[in-house]
């Protein structure tokens, strides 16, 4: 097992003329779940795209499973790292099962389709997100939350070691929010994967063991989530007054209006 599923050295990313994250040194070990927090436009998505090899970087090095991402073939990278995009195309002509099956693309061996292992992975992914009853439905007929679960199931079918999730909670109801965190914890703790999760809900961020705070001007902060999630830090991060309710894993944070 690699010592680090993700390692960045002096990584700098930005959009256009704006540098959003400067000189990031980050090491993500198997079994770790990181919350990525910051204001709108602070570079969370840009960073995640760079880590998945989808966006250019300004400087620095990214290694996934101890191999520089530039040295990966696309398909191979698709098996090592997977990303849940915040937004994606809405039109898809097939069924939900067809959609989830596309997640197996980096694993396909034959020109003409899936083998038993692919089908087992798809079935497991559908079951993991309560999607079996909907599997034969046209993707177009699914609701927003169901589509979000379909995207998650597609990522689970892809089965990468490094999970990059950009706002995975969007559109999910309470039950499925909890289900997603259970699935992530199983993947990370049980299967020695690692996850970087962009979140706005600090209650769920408290379930992660680490946190990466992006200030949007190049500065960042890393550490244990339990230590970073406290009102003083959060007030600087979000630029608003924050009050804490409860302590430890039960801590909740609300803005003071």
């Amino acid at each position, binding site marked *: 097992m690699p010592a680090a599923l993700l390692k960045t050295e002096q990584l700098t990313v930005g959009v256009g003329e704006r540098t959003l994250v400067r000189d990031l040194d980050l090491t993500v070990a198997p079994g770790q779940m990181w919350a990525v927090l910051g204001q709108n436009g602070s570079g969370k998505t840009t960073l995640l795209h760079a880590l*998945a090899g*989808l966006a250019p970087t300004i400087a620095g090095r990214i290694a996934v499973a101890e191999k520089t991402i530039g040295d990966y073939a696309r398909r*191979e*990278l*698709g098996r090592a790292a997977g990303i849940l*995009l915040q937004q994606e195309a809405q039109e898809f*002509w097939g069924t939900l099962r067809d959609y989830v099956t596309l997640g197996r*693309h*980096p694993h*396909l061996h034959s020109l003409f389709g899936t083998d038993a292992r692919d089908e087992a992975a798809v079935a497991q992914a559908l079951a993991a997100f309560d999607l079996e009853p909907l599997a034969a439905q046209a993707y177009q007929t699914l609701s927003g939350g169901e589509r979000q679960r379909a995207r998650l199931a597609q990522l689970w079918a892809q089965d990468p070691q490094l999970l990059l999730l950009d706002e995975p909670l969007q559109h999910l109801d309470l039950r499925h929010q909890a289900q997603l965190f259970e699935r992530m914890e199983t993947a990370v703790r049980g299967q020695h994967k690692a996850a970087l999760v962009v979140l706005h809900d600090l209650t769920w961020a408290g379930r992660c063991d680490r946190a990466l705070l992006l200030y949007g001007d190049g500065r960042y902060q890393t550490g244990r989530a339990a230590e970073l999630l406290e009102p003083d830090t959060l007030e600087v991060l979000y630029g608003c007054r924050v009050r804490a309710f409860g302590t430890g894993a039960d801590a909740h944070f609300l803005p003071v209006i």
Partner: protein
Amino acid sequence: MMPTSKITSLGVLLVIAFVSLFIALLFGSMSFSAAQIFDSLFSSAPNIAHDIIWKLRLPRAFAAFACGGLLAMSGVLLQVLLRNPLADPYVLGVSGGAALGALLAMLLGASGAALLHLGALAGAFAAIAIVFMLSFRAGDWNVHRLLLTGIVLSAGFTALISLVLVLAPQVQLRGMLFWLMGDLSDAGNSTVAWIVLIAALAVFVALAKNLDVLALGSLKARALGVAVAPLQAAIYFGAAVATVAAVLLGGSIGFVGMMVPHALRLIGVHAHRWLLPSSALLGGSFVVLADTLARSAWAPQQLPVGVFTALIGVPALLILLSRKP
């Protein structure tokens, strides 16, 4: 749909293809019975029926089929590339360039088919090169820029074509208009078109899984392990060459490239490994039938096939669209 039903529907389309080719042999200014057609197809006794079928109707039916197959396949490819359901083989200006080239050749007095083809070929490749150079920068495709470049270029070609039409002497106008509307009456040997069709189908059916993923958007496709830029370049050139091959054979036959893929998607064929061959078969059959109508409806007067593809295609697609899903 399960693969078995996909195979069934492909089989049905294959039967339709053969039936359409047979119908094309059956009708025309001279009528033959089915028995006469079988006789001349499978024996070499020289008579008028044999000559008409082997020298006129069969080559023309094959040319029509190749044309339709190429246009429909090209339509599928461009709809994936541009991620736009309205894309058709003509959206990138390839046919406009070809038409302008052909018309200029006519205007300059080119009489033989070879010179006409050369003009069309030059125009088409000029259009392909311009669009490609303007849209492909630093290995990164911007699909919107590609679409816009094509549309702008098409508009330019349309203006130039109008100019040529206005300046052209009366006697040449009819030939030019037929070329623009899509016409198979001068379609010669379709061997090259068939080679292009079969080769392109083989390549893109092999790449079909990648096309399925690309349809979700280029970011998603890259995240799922598709080398997007080379794939997009391959699609662009594949679609362009297919369009050129079709346009050289039959001019700008409209509506097939946009309609056929949609008709198939509406009946549930969407995975590209089925959609591509199905489109080629349906597009081919469709143009063969439209061309049979075009040359027999007002026989011996021959009408441009493009008129009939639209006349049949528009109501057919409207009915499919109004169906409850």
